[in-house]
């Protein structure tokens, strides 16, 4: 298991670092900070609250550390999150600032969720033999991105085909000072921080991919770009938010994707981070 733990600790307000380090080094999944209430540590199977309540300065500290004191450099602030060094995602809630009806930032921060990014090598070994397109679905926090990351590596190393990744949120293969935090595979190219729709076009034109991988399909434009890539003969590895096959079918945004019969295999994540696969035959 790999984790840029020091990078995570740098995001945590100084007064709680020692406790978080002691309690969460191995098992911490999320640290939730809410204004006026004690910090909540979400560990594997249990929750722990620290004593002192969180203040505004603590929340600002987390956001400043995650954005390297530079909110403009993290364009995702307008979507309510920042991906920090090491791939740790900082979710932000508070009073939204709207420009022409579109959220452009958060004025007063009231909650911050610091999610730990961990990498597990070899969890997708049995999946490496699936040669077609694969869609991974699951609830938030069920381990979709972690599984996708290893699947990309496995496919890149075992099949030897070029795998190109559009890493819009910089969570699949995050960066640190030395480069990428986690191994990407011998034949993998990563386009970070670019929108999926544009990124897929760029990769198709320039990188001659056999497989394109993207994380968290959420918009109909993403689906259209994937279908386009699929018709160009490229295999797709992707993740989507859906608790079950039933949820997936009933979400209108995914309908064109399913109707196009782009994906051959569906991987369903359970809340306990285990998974099972099904053939997509709709």
């Amino acid at each position, binding site marked *: 298991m790999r984790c840029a733990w020091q990078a995570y600790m*740098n995001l945590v307000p*100084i007064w709680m670092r020692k406790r978080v380090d002691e309690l969460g080094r191995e098992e911490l999944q999320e640290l939730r900070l809410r204004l006026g209430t004690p910090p909540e540590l979400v560990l594997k199977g249990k929750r722990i609250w620290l004593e002192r309540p969180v203040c505004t*300065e603590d929340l*600002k*500290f987390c956001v*400043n*550390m995650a*954005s*390297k*004191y*530079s*909110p*403009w*450099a993290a*364009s995702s*602030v307008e979507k309510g999150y920042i991906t920090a060094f090491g791939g740790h995602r900082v979710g932000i809630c508070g009073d939204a600032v709207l420009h022409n009806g579109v959220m*452009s*930032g958060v004025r007063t921060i009231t909650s911050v969720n610091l999610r730990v990014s961990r990498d597990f090598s070899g969890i997708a070994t049995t999946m490496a033999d699936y040669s077609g397109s694969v869609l991974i679905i699951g609830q938030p926090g069920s381990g979709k991105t972690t599984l996708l990351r290893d699947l990309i590596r496995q496919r890149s190393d075992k099949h030897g085909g070029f795998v190109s990744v559009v890493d819009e949120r910089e969570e699949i293969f995050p960066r640190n000072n030395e480069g990428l935090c986690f191994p990407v595979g011998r034949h993998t190219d990563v386009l970070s921080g670019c929108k999926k729709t544009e990124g897929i076009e760029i990769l198709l034109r320039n990188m001659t991919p056999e497989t394109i991988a993207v994380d968290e399909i959420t918009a109909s434009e993403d689906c259209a770009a994937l279908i386009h890539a699929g018709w160009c003969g490229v295999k797709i590895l992707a993740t989507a938010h859906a608790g079950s096959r039933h949820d997936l079918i009933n979400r209108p945004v995914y309908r064109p994707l399913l109707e196009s019969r782009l994906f051959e295999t569906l991987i369903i994540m359970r809340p306990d981070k285990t998974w099972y696969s099904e053939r997509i035959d709709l």
Partner: protein
Amino acid sequence: MMFKILGALFIVVGCGSFGLIMAYNHRREVFALEQMIAALDYMQSELRYNLLPLPELSEKVIGITKGVVSKVFRYFLEELQKQVLPDAEICMRSALEQARDVPDITKSCFEVLSLTLGKFDLEGQERALSSLRQNCYKKLEEFTKNQDTRLRSYQTLGICAGAAVTILFI
């Protein structure tokens, strides 16, 4: 008599040095302001085209500036990299405290800069830098108006004042 001559010499040299120091400080302030404008100019361009975060931005500014401005940005970078202070304003204030010998006008520019850094979206940050740069230009213009005459005056005034005091004493 010997003491009188020595004393007179000291007074002339002392007053002359005072004039020279005034002139030196003036030149220092001008140089620092010019460097500050160059830094702000560079920051604005880098922000617009590369969206660099503050630590990387400061590193680049250190590379293109000289003297006290470069020194302040170096201390600022150190503070940012420590990831201990809660925001960029406090990091800049700490850097200014460490640098100490920043000329007054340039220091006030840095203080204004600290109030804006890391607080806005890209557009806001650019606007803040641009307005500060214009401010620096104005200050520099005011400061350099009749600069040569003024510098000569400082130096001669110093020496003349020394001579006058000496004559009075003798």
